[in-house]
C-alpha cells in the first residue's frame, strides 16, 4: 500500500524509503494501479521521505513519466533532497533526465 492523494486535479504519490531495484518493482506496480483508477493529467512525486535512490529508481521514475506523458499529462517532483537527487543530477545524466518539472516547494 502506498500513500497517495487525489485532489480532483492532481495525484500526489509519497515515495519513501530506499528506491533501488528491489523496491522499484513494488512502486511501479502501485503507481500504475493508481494511474489506472482515473485519468491523471498531473502526477506529483514527493521525495521527502526517500533516503536513497539509485539508477533503478531513476528507471522507475522515467517509466511512470512515460506512462503519464503518453496520456498527455505532466509529472512533477517535489521534496527532492540530497539523497534522492544525487543520482538523477549526476554528471551528464541531468541532460537526459530532466523531463520532470520541479514543483515550487523543492
Amino acid at each position: 500500500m502506498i500513500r497517495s492523494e487525489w485532489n480532483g486535479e492532481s495525484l500526489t504519490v509519497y515515495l519513501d524509503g530506499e528506491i533501488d531495484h528491489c523496491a522499484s518493482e513494488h512502486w511501479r506496480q502501485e503507481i500504475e494501479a493508481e494511474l489506472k483508477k482515473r485519468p491523471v493529467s498531473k502526477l506529483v512525486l514527493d521525495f521527502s521521505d526517500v533516503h536513497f535512490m539509485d539508477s533503478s529508481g531513476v528507471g522507475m521514475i522515467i517509466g511512470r513519466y512515460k506512462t503519464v506523458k503518453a496520456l498527455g499529462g505532466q509529472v512533477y517532483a517535489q521534496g527532492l533532497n540530497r539523497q534522492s537527487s544525487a543520482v538523477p543530477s549526476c554528471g551528464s545524466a541531468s541532460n537526459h533526465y530532466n523531463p520532470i518539472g520541479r514543483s515550487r516547494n523543492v
Partner: protein
Amino acid sequence: MNNQMELSFSAAAQNEAFARMVISAFLVQVNPTLSIVSEIRTAVSEAVTNSIVHAYSGDEGKVVMRARLDDTYVYIEIEDYGKGIGDIRQAMQPFFTTQPEQERTGMGFALMQSFMDEVHVSSAVGSGTLVCMKKRLNECDVIYDAEGWRTLDRRLI
C-alpha cells in the same frame, strides 16, 4: 591502518539493501562524511544490482563483496560467477542497456565511475565479472603553507 572484510550472499534483490548496509557499517570506523558514504553506497548498489539483474538474470547465484581500508582509500570489489560481459566497453557506455524493456537506464557503470575515483571491470563470458573500485576517503583542500607552497590538507569533518 589496514582492515578488510569479505561477504558472500545470494543474488537476491533484497540483498542489494543488505550490501549497502554492510559497506556503510564497515566505513563507520574511518568516520567518513555523509556524502562519501552516500556515493559509495550508490556505487555498491549499482554493482550488486548488475550482478543480480544481468549476471544471473534472476537465477540463483552468489555475489561476493570485498572491501579494504587503508589510511587514505577504500577499495571495493564486487564479484559474481554469472554469465559475464562480452563487450565491457559497450556495457560501460552511459545509457547502454541490454534490458530497456525492464526500465533499466544503462546508468550503472556511469554512476560507479562518477561516484568512485577509479573503476575497473574484468569479465569472462560464462564465468563471471569482477568490478574493482577505489575511492579516497577524505576530501582534500588545497592550502598554502607559510612559504607559499601548495600542499594538500586532509579535511577533518
